[in-house]
């Protein structure tokens, strides 16, 4: 089981209830696959840096979860088909490093760098790029 971070951008016109419904459905599918939801963040309505499907804003939902890798492809497929989803991205979550902030010491550096490259190499990025207005 790996820890992932999934961010979903919903159409700003979509009602709160519909978004909650979709989040619930994602949570359910994770639970069904013996996964676990770590955290759900609602960033709310944000201005997009560029228009997606002629929308200027999007409602952001950020979910940190533990899931089997097979579920990620399934989730990706679902978001692609969902019309209310403007964009989505799933990446591997960075492991919390035990390195304390006040003592940056040289010794801790190589370990952190190794962890960083490992996380980068295994990145599972799913993004629908085809719609750029």
């Amino acid at each position, binding site marked *: 089981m790996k820890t992932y971070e999934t*961010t979903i*951008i919903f159409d700003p016109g979509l009602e709160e209830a519909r978004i909650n419904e979709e989040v619930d459905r994602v949570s359910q599918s994770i639970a069904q696959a013996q996964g676990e939801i770590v955290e759900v963040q609602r960033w709310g309505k944000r201005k*997009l*840096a*560029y228009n*997606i499907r002629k929308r200027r804003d*999007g409602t*952001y939902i*950020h979910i940190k979860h533990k899931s089997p890798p097979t579920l990620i492809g399934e989730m990706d497929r679902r978001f692609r088909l969902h019309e209310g989803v403007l*964009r989505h*991205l799933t*990446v591997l979550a*960075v492991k919390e*490093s035990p*390195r304390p*902030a006040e003592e*940056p010491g040289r010794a801790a550096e190589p370990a*952190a*760098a190794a962890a*960083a*490259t490992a996380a*980068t190499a295994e*990145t599972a*990025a799913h*993004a629908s*790029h085809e719609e*750029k207005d």
Partner: protein
Amino acid sequence: MAREGESRSFRRKFCKLCFDKVDRIDYKDDRRLTRFITDRGKIVPRRISGTCARHQAQITEAVKRARILALLPFTSEQYR
């Protein structure tokens, strides 16, 4: 370089992220990332920003992810 040559005094560049003791730069931290992109939305090269290799690699990864999520622009509005 021109900017450094103006005052005839050489100032060594340093990695701002190492100075701030940033362990890991996050793609969600768009406010911090905006410091490392130009007004056109390009990633600032190491030779200009003075960032160390490790942090530059992290910036690159983070900026690219942030662009996908429309937290940062691929290019600025007026040049499109």
